[in-house]
């Protein structure tokens, strides 16, 4: 094939968008043609330059809350009724049955077990939402060397991401999360069949010990260290979650 006709194919090759077998033939041509090889190198160099050096602009603080506040309110406020004991029907109708419907039903049965702590409620809401919305992970990998930089590139904080597979808490990934008015990270671990969401956001307060709470059938362990507030939320039993918190939070 002539070099002329190679040009658009080289672009697709550089973009990783050339399926086999053409990828093989184009790469083979480039391997033996210095002009096409140089062109391919240059395309890759331009791509790498943009990917590594182009500054990105983060949303200004407060934009998220302004947007949320501007969304039309379609139902009267119902602060005494946590939203998450409602969605059993929503889940069923959106086609998610089984375990998740079980969770929702549990919520319905256990609701209003204690005093109304909005932060706790929001944390548990965030946890349940992550399971419901099929949006558990933005970056799904057990490689902490991938998860941590991915999060720190997008956040003001860089929470520790640990590999705890050998002690029974394999890392599943991470995502960006808005909980309780904070933009932060959710690092996701697994304990047997249970999901643990570790929420982390910037909080300049002093370091604290571990505080354990339970509500709605979920356990929450909270602490603050190194300018980051942490909340581990899961339906694993409280001892296991406390052990997890100490593994993650222990410096």
């Amino acid at each position, binding site marked *: 094939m002539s070099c002329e006709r190679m*040009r*658009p194919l080289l*672009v*697709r090759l550089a*973009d990783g*968008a050339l399926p086999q077998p053409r990828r093989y033939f184009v790469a083979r041509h480039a391997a033996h043609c210095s*002009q096409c090889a*140089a*062109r391919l*190198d*240059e*395309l890759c*160099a*331009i*791509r790498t*330059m*943009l*990917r590594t*050096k*182009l*500054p*990105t*602009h*983060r*949303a*200004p603080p407060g*934009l*998220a809350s*302004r*947007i*949320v506040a*501007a*969304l*039309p*309110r*379609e*139902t009267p406020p*119902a602060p005494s009724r946590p*939203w998450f004991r*409602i*969605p059993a*029907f*929503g889940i069923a109708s959106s086609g998610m049955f089984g375990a998740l419907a079980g969770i929702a039903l549990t919520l319905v049965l256990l609701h209003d077990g204690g005093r109304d702590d909005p932060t706790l409620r929001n944390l548990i809401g965030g946890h349940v*939402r992550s399971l419901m*919305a099929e*949006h558990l992970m*933005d970056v799904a990998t057990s490689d902490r060397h991938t998860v941590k930089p991915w999060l720190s590139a*997008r956040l003001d904080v860089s929470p520790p991401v640990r590999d705890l597979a050998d002690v029974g808490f394999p890392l599943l990934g991470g*995502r*960006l*999360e*808005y909980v309780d008015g904070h933009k932060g990270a959710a690092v996701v671990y697994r304990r047997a069949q249970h999901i643990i969401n570790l929420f982390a956001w910037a909080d300049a307060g002093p370091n604290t010990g571990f505080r354990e709470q339970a509500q709605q059938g979920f356990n929450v362990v909270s602490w603050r260290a190194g300018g980051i507030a942490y909340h581990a939320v899961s339906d694993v039993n409280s001892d296991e979650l406390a052990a997890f918190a100490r593994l993650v939070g222990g410096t």
Partner: protein
Amino acid sequence: MALDDRKRRFEVLALPHLDAAFNLARWLAGNTTDAEDVVQDAYLRAYRYFSSFQGGDFRVWLLGIVRNCFIDWVRENRSGRMLFQAEPNAAEVETVWTATPPDPEALLLETLDSQTLERMMAHLPLEYREILLLREVEDLSYKEIATITTTPIGTVMSRLSRARLALRKLWLGAETKEASHVL
């Protein structure tokens, strides 16, 4: 209560992409204030049409809306200004490729710093800037870019090629004139 649930589902799906939406709007509009207006409008519009979201990649859907809002915003605020500039014809582009055969000069790309790159990007036609962002920063496929920009996939590929070439030309021009400060 179902509607309240809808609102929460929207927040969960949409808010994680706020930085991506803002970055696109910021690069298109050129300043923070206008970008904020565009993004806020886009989120309201996305919420209004949330029921028309048919699944798939929410970010792609949302970025398409951001783009539409930006176009509307320009129409309302800068009437008469040409939005997307005419593309150079393909023959002209091919000539440039041929006229400057790839050589070690290309390696100079590696020495480019972020500030210079940002200035160069700002000098590119809007549609070049946009497509480079969608491809390299948002890491979207040709097909996803075609969806967002409502452009045939073949046009996406050729425009992307031209955008990269235009960037390369700016850079090589700046190099030979030793005038990166001119940009």
